[in-house]
């Protein structure tokens, strides 16, 4: 765990480049520092491996102040990947990766095995590439090597300073995906600096949005998207952001929370009354079980009540039983597809316990869309 406690960095005695910053980074998480240039994100990162010393405040790794470590020792145990890649052009790929293990005098055989393992991990065959020089490789391949080199000494913490910004969009996306894949296996603690919000939301377990040397909001991507703290955050992430990443919209974001239930043995007259009172066109028929679990038996829409002449019929007789429900964390796209394929107008939403917590209707889907429509009085 990395804890940044009240860190201030000041070069000229006037402006704090980093201003009383507090941040806790949990083990195995990717935390993205994002903000416009000059917001202090890179400075903050460089203080973690002491390329920059804070003016005041402390940074602790696993509870130990990093000032207690020898600088060189500290850096050898923190991987470092930079935007310009910074491979050593006079050394082969193999030598580049093996550099730090050799400097710390690791066993030669062990080092060789490590280099092979890392190259395999980044999908560059050892036999084909180990003897080649960085200049012979594409930018994407070079940065893969950059990542492998950072992993060579098996550090727990890796700092990545806009590692993919200089790459073309296709390669960038590939490397982002590969990083996530690697992280699934390795569970490193990664501090990732970027100015690209798409990248931040894609890569980050948590995102720290910075401005003027301070963190404005520190949250999961979903948390930040759904509850931006203020206008600055909202503008930075873009108001239509949710629609650019629709996979972040969950069933629970779309559902109508005011779901109206009715007992299985209630009559049609009851149903019509409830519908009128609660202004709804659908009732969820539930078994009368004690809360909190609500077991759904069927759905009754207003069409089902129309033209029914037998007043003795109960809900259980006329309800639609071949409905489909969905889990609250199912993504919107999945829900919409399911609705379309099965020709469903109403989809009850269940929580982890299988309890009814809401219902998705045509209206609720439309409401979400109108929420993000620009408000304009010109039309």
């Amino acid at each position, binding site marked *: 765990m990395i804890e940044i406690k009240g860190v201030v960095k000041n070069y000229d005695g006037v402006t704090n480049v980093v201003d009383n910053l507090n941040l806790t980074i949990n083990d195995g998480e990717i935390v993205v520092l994002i903000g416009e240039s000059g917001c202090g994100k890179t400075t903050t990162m460089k203080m973690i491996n002491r*390329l920059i010393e804070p003016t005041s405040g402390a940074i602790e790794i696993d509870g130990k102040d990093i000032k207690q470590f020898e600088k060189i020792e500290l*850096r050898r145990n923190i991987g470092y990947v*930079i935007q310009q890649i910074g491979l*050593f052009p*006079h050394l*082969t790929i193999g030598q580049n990766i093996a550099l*730090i293990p050799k*400097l710390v005098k690791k066993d030669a055989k062990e080092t060789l095995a490590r280099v092979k393992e890392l190259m395999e991990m980044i999908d560059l065959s050892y036999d084909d590439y180990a003897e080649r020089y*960085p200049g*012979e490789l594409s930018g994407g391949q070079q940065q893969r090597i950059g990542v492998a080199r950072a992993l060579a000494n098996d550090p727990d913490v890796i700092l990545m300073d806009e590692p993919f910004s200089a790459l073309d969009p296709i390669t960038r996306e590939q490397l982002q995906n590969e990083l996530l894949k690697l992280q699934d296996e390795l569970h490193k603690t990664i501090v990732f600096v970027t100015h690209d919000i798409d990248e931040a939301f894609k890569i980050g377990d948590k995102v720290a949005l910075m401005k003027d040397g301070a963190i404005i909001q520190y949250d999961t991507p979903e948390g930040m998207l759904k509850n931006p703290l203020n206008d600055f955050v909202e503008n930075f992430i873009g108001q239509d952001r949710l629609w650019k990443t629709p996979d972040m919209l969950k069933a629970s974001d779309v559902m109508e929370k005011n779901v109206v239930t009715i007992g299985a043995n209630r009559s049609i007259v009851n149903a019509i009354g409830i519908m009128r009172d609660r202004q709804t066109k659908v009732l969820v028929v539930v078994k009368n079980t004690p809360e909190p679990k609500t077991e759904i038996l069927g759905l009754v829409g207003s069409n089902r009540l129309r033209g029914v002449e037998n007043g003795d019929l109960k809900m259980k007789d006329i309800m639609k039983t071949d409905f489909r429900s969905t889990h609250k964390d199912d993504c919107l796209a999945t829900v919409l597809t399911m609705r379309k394929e099965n020709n469903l107008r109403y989809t009850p939403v269940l929580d982890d316990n299988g309890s009814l917590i809401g219902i998705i209707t045509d209206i609720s889907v439309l409401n979400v869309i109108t929420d993000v429509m620009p408000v304009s009085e010109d039309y």
Partner: protein
Amino acid sequence: MDFSFSKFIDYIVNNWQYVLEKSADHMSMSLTAVAFSCLIGIPLGVIITRNKKVSDVILGIANVIQTVPSLALFAFMISIFGIGRTNAIFALFLYALLPIIKNTYIGIKNVEPAITQAATGMGMTKFQILYKVEMPLSVAVIMGGIRIATVTGIGVATIATLIGAGGLGDVIYQGIGMANLQMILTGAIASAVLALFADFVLGKVEKKLTSKGLTTN
């Protein structure tokens, strides 16, 4: 002064041992000077990359030395240290310093900052960065300085004869004194050949020292 090609050949055939001896003398004198220049100049060039003020002073001094005409420098040497081979080598040493210091300085300064930044961030010490990264990357530029210093040194060394240091300058100045064009030409050509040869060998050394990774793109 008259000149004929056959007389020239005759001179060489009859005096080749003398010319060879003087050439060896000449070569050892210039190379010793350049070797000392490297010994002092390369570390100096490295040191001044770390400090702007010191670099201005050192490069300034080296520039001044370089602007002194070689003949004047040798005359100056006599007035201070007297005559002899050692003094000639000292003068040649001073002369060779500038290109070596300057090229070392430029070579290391031109290493991409991103590369040294990566090296620092990875946990390499300053010394490791110097000899594992900066020096290998600037070897071509540093060798360039050494080659310039050597070629100029071999040329300038012909004047060393004026302070009694020997070398091919002896042959040339004797030729001038005796109005013997064959001798003058022999001395001049021999020193030119030495310079070309030294440059060729140093070129090979440079190629050997330069990583393949720096030439393949």
